[in-house]
């Protein structure tokens, strides 16, 4: 690489600590025009921290940042943006009160005379971006209430609208299904071909191999390896990230289905989903598959009682549920791991142990008081089972990495030992090793007699874990595919409604 032009943006031996946590240790990395670089590493390896240094959110404690070979300092996100860096952060950063179009163009709205914002142009440009991404989002819709996937899509549109020289994507696909990912990659490739440098982070290895030319791996904040994608196979990458061999990724155990634990009949919420009926037996793992926006999470929320339903019924263990009462559902042994960990899953300011205890306060209680000791024991147990990377259980969940926050949400609900467990994108943002661990746990729980309903946009996860696959499309249940015949083709055909149309 001696005679190649200098990288557009580069880090040289950059270090960053948060108090006692050394998030990055002398990490170097180069982003080259016309090339997509993947950043790999386990949860808490320091990937998002690195992104935030490139985007001017954090200042490095040591080391240098090079723009076109020249040292620069970013004093804030505005500086990085001015240098042509566009970022999709791991956690959506939308303004809920503003419209989708305003969210995309905030601070850069097209203007007419007198500096007046040209709303029509703004709307048209937003609509054009969505057409390019192939998603049916309305630019005039308020951002409040968008699903995680839709929020992610708005973030993507926002980054694309910047015509950046450097496009950084921190787990943009974590909540997306195959279709949207294909679209996104199409757009990312054309940007790359136009000379944009791309940095891509994902825990889905196939995506890394699909999109990128090179990969830089981090472990515990340190730089481990730089590889050309063409020279390695996924197992090599896993070994670099984890530092050891990993067993089979989907160790699904077979369980004998017992009696019906969750029965949903003709459930309808007007404008959201229609006439959804299914049942989940004890010992079974049933996956709910479909494209983003098909209404899967909405069904889960209604079953659990977060949203009301307009018609139909839900029974848990033979007892009918009242609509709109999560407390009643929980009393009957229902648990829901929601898709949006920051808004619905966690209280960001509270400690890890308190968050884990929240869903089961009755079990860590001494009379009217909460027992700190019981809380800590419960948290310590689950932190270890899920390999939570943390400094102290008394730290606020706010400072955890994205994947580790997800583990806390899982721990919070698994610790309740529910009889019916609904998990919505349970491994969103979780690294390969822990993903296997979560899958093992779910499988074990099922064998132990729990009914599991799993929503997932990741097909390998669906195919690997589920005894049966239910497929939703446009708010309706369109197919039920048993494990034996569930393949990528049959599920996708049912989800998209083309080519066979499902079982």
């Amino acid at each position, binding site marked *: 690489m001696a005679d190649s032009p200098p990288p557009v943006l580069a880090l040289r031996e950059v270090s960053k600590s948060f108090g006692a946590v050394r998030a990055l240790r002398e990490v170097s990395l180069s982003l080259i025009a016309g090339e997509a670089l993947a950043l790999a590493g386990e949860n808490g390896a320091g990937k998002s921290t690195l992104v935030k240094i490139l985007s001017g959110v954090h200042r490095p404690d040591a080391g240098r940042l090079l723009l076109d070979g020249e040292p620069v300092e970013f004093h804030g996100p505005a500086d990085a943006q001015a240098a042509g860096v566009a970022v999709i952060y791991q956690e959506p950063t939308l303004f809920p009160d503003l419209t989708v179009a305003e969210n995309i163009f905030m601070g850069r709205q097209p203007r007419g005379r007198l500096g007046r*914002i040209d709303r029509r142009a703004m709307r048209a440009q937003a609509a054009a971006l969505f057409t390019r991404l192939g998603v*049916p989002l309305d630019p005039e819709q308020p951002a409040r209430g968008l699903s995680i996937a839709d929020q992610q899509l708005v973030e993507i549109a926002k980054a694309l609208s910047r015509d950046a020289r450097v496009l950084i994507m921190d787990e943009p696909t974590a909540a997306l299904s195959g279709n949207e990912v294909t679209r996104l990659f199409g757009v990312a490739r054309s940007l790359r071909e136009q000379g944009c440098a791309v940095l891509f982070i994902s825990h889905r290895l196939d995506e890394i191999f699909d999109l990128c030319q090179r990969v830089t791996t981090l472990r515990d904040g340190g730089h481990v390896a730089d590889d050309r994608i063409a020279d390695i196979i996924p197992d090599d990458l896993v070994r670099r990230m984890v530092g050891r061999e990993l067993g089979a990724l989907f160790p699904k155990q077979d369980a004998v289905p017992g009696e019906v634990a969750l029965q949903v009949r003709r459930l309808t919420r007007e*404008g959201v989903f229609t006439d959804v009926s299914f049942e989940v037996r004890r010992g079974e793992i049933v996956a709910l598959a479909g494209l983003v926006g098909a209404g899967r999470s909405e069904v889960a929320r209604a079953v659990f009682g977060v949203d009301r339903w307009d018609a139909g019924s839900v029974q848990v263990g033979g007892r009918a549920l009242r609509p709109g009462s999560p407390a009643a559902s929980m009393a009957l042994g229902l648990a829901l791991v929601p898709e949006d960990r920051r808004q619905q899953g966690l209280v960001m300011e509270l400690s890890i142990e308190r968050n884990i205890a929240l869903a089961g306060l009755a079990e860590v209680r001494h009379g009217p008081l909460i027992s700190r000791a019981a809380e800590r024991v419960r948290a310590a147990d689950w932190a270890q089972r899920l390999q939570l990377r943390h400094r102290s259980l008394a730290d606020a969940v706010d400072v955890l990495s994205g994947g580790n926050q997800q583990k806390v949400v899982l721990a919070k609900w698994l610790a309740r030992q529910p009889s019916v467990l609904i998990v919505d994108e349970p491994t969103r943002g979780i690294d390969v090793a822990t993903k296997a661990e979560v899958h093992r746990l779910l499988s074990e729980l099922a064998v132990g007699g729990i009914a599991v309903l799993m929503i997932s946009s990741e097909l390998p996860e669906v195919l690997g874990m589920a005894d049966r696959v239910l497929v939703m499309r446009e*708010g309706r249940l369109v197919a039920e595919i048993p494990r034996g015949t569930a393949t990528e083709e049959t599920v996708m055909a049912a989800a998209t409604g083309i080519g066979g149309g499902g079982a």
Partner: protein
Amino acid sequence: MTITAKRPGATLRDSGRGLVERVARVRELGIVVALAVLFGVTGAVNPEFLGLDSLRDILLNSAIIAMLAVGQTLVVITRNVDLSVSSVVGLSAFGGALVLADNPGLPIVVVIAGCVLLGAACGAINGLLVGAAKVPALVATLGTLYAFRGIDYAWAGGRQVNAADMPDSFLSLGSRPVLGVPLLALAAIAVLLAVGWMLRNLRSGRELYAIGSNPAAAVLAGIPVRKRVITAFVASGALAGLAGAMWAARFGTVDAAAATGKELDVIAAVVVGGVAIFGGSGTVYGAALGALLLTGISSALAVLRVDALAQTAINGALIIAAIVLDRLLALRVAAALRRRRYRDAR
């Protein structure tokens, strides 16, 4: 591949948008309806309430609160609050009156400009405390609420400026009508329209909403948060300074206690006007209408000969009613939108 989960046609988008827009307007329309009911009922009981004099009085009385509510809205939208406005009004009213009384030859424009500058300086102190020193706005402006009032008392030293001490040309500003509308009300309306336009149409205006809607995201978006927050406080202070000059012109007799306690009326007007107290949404038009409604209620209660002691309680009850109504309306609208999307999708 071009498959997507739903493919909304143009009809869905347009109808959805039309409804949203209509509802956005309805939020303010709700207050207009409340105003109509108030005037209708009170007028039926006592027709004098609808007389020109009475209406002009109400306009005049609400002008100052409306002006302050406009400034307050700028601050509240950014998820902050300015409790010190009443003290700024007091300081500016007394200062302006005293300077005029001592220097009768001074052009009135200079005095008013001085009042505005004094207010802006007070606002800058608030803004620096909140934006730069990161003191929570509630605490910072509670502190300056007392501090500014203290300065006012120290400056006055028990003195009082009477109408007789001030030039008539100044006092006439407080009551003179232009085309039948009191000048003060016209000033408030002009400020209202200007600020309303800026909030809706300028990038900086939209950025205020962004800051209040999600402060952390505003930083990531590269918005100059500190600068915007400071500007909002300075604007609120400047408008309070202007309101102080209006206060002196309107009441003639000013002492150091002028406008004490008015900050709560202002915040009530803002909240009743549909500005979210946690920032990110609401308009200055709503806030101004809120000021008009609250002033109207007070006048009506007086006209209806409601016991003065009961008035405060009734005022409070009506404020709560207005907010509950607003909340119910928002829920209704959300449900209606959902149903509509459903019908369109079929």
